[in-house]
């Protein structure tokens, strides 16, 4: 619709002034066009979003685009040069001897695929344990603690570690897990074991446990919020109609808390998938995660191959997030 047409429309439906001085014109039958031409109150949107948008383009979009572009470049001795080659993707998927039936590597996935798979396996385990630990906690805080002040205080107390250094929280596991660590001592004290076991430090167990401890608070927050939002009259109504506590949980509380579970699980998922420092500290670097692979190849200046690993990590994460979103619709939560 042109401006002329707009004015024509306004001429047919002239605004009626209410009162004599300063009355806001009441527009009869305000349509899309008149709404568009009326100046909105508040600062103009472009000015408000321009700085942050620019920042995100430079520091978020550009790095991701460059990873994608660089993954096709060729490596030179000390860096990379523009080219279009798929050799790094090939190297990611196909290890030497992949097509040779006489070699043990025949049709076995490459070390990089296996690393990504290990990363994924650790992530899934950590997610499951985080959920099992976080849900009762969030339930306790939101449903059992009645006083709002207590609720807030206890919630903050469980969230504070999120704001402290995760490197330090990772290194703090050392005195707990070692041969003379607190866990061994404790188990000897209660008579569960006789000799200290070295099974705790630098093992899958310790790595998973450290991951859970580092990231469980990320699951507590969203689940707590979704539980706290549940309308209490629903629960009361169900109780009045004779539902058992277990039925109330299964039919009302749990379904309504699903969006919170999904958001919390997405948090844990993306954090643990991208994790690399904890693996070195508590796992002794025995097994690498895709994060450490990326850094190692960056250090030896093989940037394209680091980029390929990064893209694969990103793809795995996207698939994971999409799967979670498929299971639970979180749009109403946002």
């Amino acid at each position, binding site marked *: 619709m042109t401006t002329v047409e707009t004015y024509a429309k306004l001429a047919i439906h002239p605004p009626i002034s209410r009162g004599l001085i300063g009355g806001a014109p009441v527009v009869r039958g305000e349509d899309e066009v008149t709404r568009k031409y009326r100046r909105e*109150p508040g*600062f103009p949107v472009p000015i408000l979003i321009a700085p942050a948008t620019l920042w995100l383009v*430079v520091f978020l979009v550009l790095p*991701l685009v460059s990873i994608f572009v660089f993954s096709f470049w060729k490596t030179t001795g000390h860096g990379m040069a523009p080219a279009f080659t798929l050799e790094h993707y090939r190297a990611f998927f196909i290890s030497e001897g992949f097509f040779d039936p006489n070699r043990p590597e025949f049709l076995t996935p490459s070390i990089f695929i296996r690393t990504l798979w290990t990363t994924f396996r650790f992530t899934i385990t950590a997610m499951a344990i985080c959920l099992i630990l976080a849900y009762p906690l969030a339930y306790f805080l939101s449903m059992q603690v009645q006083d709002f002040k207590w609720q807030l205080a206890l919630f903050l107390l469980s969230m504070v570690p999120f704001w402290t*250094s995760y490197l330090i929280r990772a290194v703090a596991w050392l005195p707990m897990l070692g041969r003379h660590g607190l866990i061994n001592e404790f188990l000897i004290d209660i008579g569960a074991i006789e000799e200290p076991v070295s099974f705790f430090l630098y093992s899958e167990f310790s790595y998973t446990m450290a991951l859970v401890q580092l990231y*469980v608070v990320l699951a507590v927050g969203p689940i707590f919020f979704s539980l706290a939002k549940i309308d209490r009259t629903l629960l009361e109504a169900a109780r009045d109609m004779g539902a058992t506590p277990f039925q109330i949980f299964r039919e009302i509380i749990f379904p309504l808390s699903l969006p919170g579970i999904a958001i919390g699980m997405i948090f844990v998922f993306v954090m643990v998938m*991208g994790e*690399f420092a904890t693996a*070195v500290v508590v796992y002794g670097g025995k097994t690498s995660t895709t994060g450490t692979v990326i850094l190692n190849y960056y250090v030896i200046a093989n*940037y394209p191959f680091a980029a390929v690993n990064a893209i694969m990590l990103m793809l795995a994460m996207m698939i994971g997030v999409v799967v979670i979103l498929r299971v639970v619709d979180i749009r109403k939560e946002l």
Partner: protein
Amino acid sequence: MARSTPERRRKTRIKAGFSVYYAIFLIFVYGPMFAMFTLSFQGPRGGVTFPMRGLSFVWWERLAGPSAVGDIKSSLVRSLILAVMVMVITAIFSTMLAMAFRKKFHGSNVLFYAVMAGLMVPGVLLSLGLASLLRVIGISPGWWYSALGVHVVWTLPFGFLVMMAVFNRFDGRLEEAARDMGADEWTVFKEVTLPLITPGIVAAGLFGFTLSYDEFARTTLLAGAQNTLPLDINAAMTQRVQPTIFALGTASTIFSLLMISLFIVIYTILYRRSR
């Protein structure tokens, strides 16, 4: 005192069970930190695990003196400056963005997901992307520009969500009233909006400060020649681990806790005043 019925007793028992669980959870989350705290007073001949071989301040003294770990004092200063810069930028950007999102505009969905992507994209990816990009262009990275940029991408979604929540409960009629009385946009913002949203801005700043101060993954390839504190801690960890690292960890954790309490105090004061 209410009558004790079986129903009531059952509820009390459930609640007690959950309370015990909460306590165990706290031990799980805080336990390692307390172990670290205790071991930082390890005797001079003791190691990084229990038992304690005497009590001493040796490792704390080593932390204060010139040490093998690196120049901790200046990396601490760098970390603090960086955290303050991230805090200010996060607070300003998230306020501006949340104000824009009060209206409907084209591309708001794309922008929303772009902001949220900062939460989802692993730090190591952004570090890698920006570091290799800078290398191609021929700029050497530095903590106060390249690391700063990626830090803000990470903290912005937190601040943004806080400010969105603040504006969700905001009564826009107050601003309309000021406008009707002839105030221009700046006056409305300065006199009406800002005082009401200051607690939110402080909370957004808290996320900016603490998340940046502790950030490692997003600094690791982008700090250039000079280290920030988390980088120093990481360097100390990959060398032979000594109780010095526990002293450093304890000091850093106590500092984080102090900052959080400071923010909470400021928030409470401002929140009371804005009522």
